[in-house]
């Protein structure tokens, strides 16, 4: 007798949780793997539990109540391999306290995979960005919401994109004073296609953004567009920042620089970068830094679906719709139990989400002028402490013209984060120096180990043979 099919969903944010629920309701057994202690991902981050209270978010309650979902929390998938049947995969994971030695190891056979690995903040380098106290907007929000801890007492927020607003509001909630929010872009570009934004973003999302703007206004937080933090200063930690007005290309308008001091934290976010190592390991086609999916969230790799920000950033509502569609599609393909009406309804919401994502990208583009802020000794790669001057010399003096060669020549992207923070920025800088994109822009995203594993654990191997039931 063969075991009933099993879907492994990686990531328990809005997309992954919805995918798991949809597949489970279709009669499929689901393993939902996520690094956090609880369901919800970065968006529905749970506050640190107050003594005696353990309130569940509705999404989490549904997952807990669904008997066909096994939720593996504090678990990380560190490698994928081809499985015993066409379209199946071996999923290698570790579970337990983060980065501890001897985390529990398991290998699952997945008849289908739904990858909902999400995205993380992009930060464009500028002089002083490596000073302690300079953090990503996502870090500030995760700390404020999840840990009720303020990253600083007097904080500046800068970057581009609507996520800067909830990050700034979370700082206020945690008790910080926000000295200013500096948006490099021009959010009034939304007005060009306001009806589309209303239709595709949905009233709830726009109401949410309006509530953030209201909170910032009540606290008299200065919010300026076409301005950004162009340098951070301090001895051993951030103590001051320089804010400047930007021209249309994001070059600094001469004479517009102004120092804000004292500050003890700076939160920066220039949009998000999809977490691509698992989709690349599964052989999924990636274009423009996003996983390519069809109208049912299927990737180019048989048996592999993707949903949420890994396919493009459109917010939690769109991610949830993509997740539901991916879960329905995976269940239908495994059991032939298609629910056309539900698939069609989810697909319509997904199409609206894609249009919204395109509008977001058009409203908050990254302009090439950021490159002009880098000085000879501005760090590009934080881990290996590679400066812009060293990167430029590798390209212009030593003739390196592909990301892999450049990595081996000047060590950019060779450190502990494996190019997650610097890879995209370095590729953009190299493209500027060469006058064309480098040959292999995805080279830094290919990581055979998707998460760090202790060598002792790697040597000891999994606890048993692959679990097939």
């Amino acid at each position, binding site marked *: 007798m063969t075991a009933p099919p099993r879907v492994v969903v990686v990531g328990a944010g809005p997309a992954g949780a919805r995918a798991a629920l949809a597949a489970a309701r279709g009669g499929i057994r689901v393993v939902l793997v996520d*690094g956090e202690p609880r369901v919800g991902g970065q968006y529905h981050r749970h506050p640190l*539990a107050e003594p005696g209270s353990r309130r569940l978010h509705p999404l989490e309650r549904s997952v807990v109540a669904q008997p066909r979902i096994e939720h593996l929390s504090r678990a990380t998938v560190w490698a994928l391999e081809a499985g015993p049947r066409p379209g199946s995969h071996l999923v290698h994971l570790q579970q337990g306290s*983060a*980065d501890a030695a001897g985390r529990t190891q398991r290998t699952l056979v997945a008849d289908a995979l739904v990858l909902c690995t999400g995205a*993380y903040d992009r930060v464009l380098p500028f002089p002083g960005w490596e000073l*302690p106290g300079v953090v990503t907007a996502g*870090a500030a929000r995760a700390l404020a919401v999840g840990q009720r801890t303020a990253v600083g007492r007097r904080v500046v927020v800068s970057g581009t994109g609507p996520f800067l607003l909830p990050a700034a509001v979370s700082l206020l909630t945690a008790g910080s004073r926000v000295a200013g929010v500096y948006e490099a872009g021009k959010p009034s570009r939304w007005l060009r296609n306001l009806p589309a934004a209303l239709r595709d973003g949905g009233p709830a999302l726009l109401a949410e953004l309006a509530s953030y703007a209201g909170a910032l206004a009540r606290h008299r937080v200065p919010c300026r567009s076409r301005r950004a933090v162009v340098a951070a200063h301090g001895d051993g930690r951030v103590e001051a920042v320089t804010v400047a007005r930007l021209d249309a290309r994001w070059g600094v308008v001469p004479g517009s620089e102004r120092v804000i001091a004292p500050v003890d934290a700076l939160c920066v976010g220039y949009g998000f970068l999809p977490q691509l190592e698992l989709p690349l390991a599964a052989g999924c086609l990636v274009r423009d830094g996003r996983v390519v999916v069809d109208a049912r969230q299927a990737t180019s790799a048989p048996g592999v679906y993707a949903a949420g920000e890994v396919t493009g950033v459109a917010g939690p509502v769109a991610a949830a719709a993509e997740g539901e569609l991916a879960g329905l599609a995976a269940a239908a393909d495994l059991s032939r139990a298609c629910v056309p009406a539900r698939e069609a309804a989810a697909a319509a919401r997904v199409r609206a989400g894609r249009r919204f994502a395109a509008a977001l990208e058009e409203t908050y583009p990254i302009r090439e002028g950021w490159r002009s802020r880098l000085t000879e000794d501005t760090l590009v790669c934080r881990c290996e402490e590679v400066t812009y001057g060293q990167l430029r010399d590798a390209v212009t003096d030593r003739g390196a013209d592909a990301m892999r060669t450049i990595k081996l020549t000047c060590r950019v992207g060779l450190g502990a*984060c494996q190019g997650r*923070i610097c890879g995209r920025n370095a590729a953009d800088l190299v493209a500027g120096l060469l006058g064309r994109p480098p040959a292999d822009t995805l080279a830094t995203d290919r990581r055979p180990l998707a998460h760090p594993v202790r060598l002792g654990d790697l040597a000891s191997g999994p606890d048993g043979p692959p679990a097939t039931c």
Partner: protein
Amino acid sequence: MPLTVYVDGVPHPARPGQTVAALLLATGRTAWRSTRHGGRPRGLFCGIGVCHDCLVAVNGLPDVRACLREVCDGDRIETQDGATLPGPAGERA
């Protein structure tokens, strides 16, 4: 029930579910690691386990991401200088 953890030998109260990074920030620190090459101070940056800037030693085992690791009662947290090898009291399964 409050927990007690030790930061460079000094006891600090901690809350269940609190991350090492949140605890270190609450003690007034912004940096708890120095870089391998330049010896420059580093602390929290991405906050979600991506950047590996916030590495710290917990119970003798180095290279633990402070932003992800939740404290346990009695944990010994030590700042990390450059590339560190596991100490004699290294954590074992």
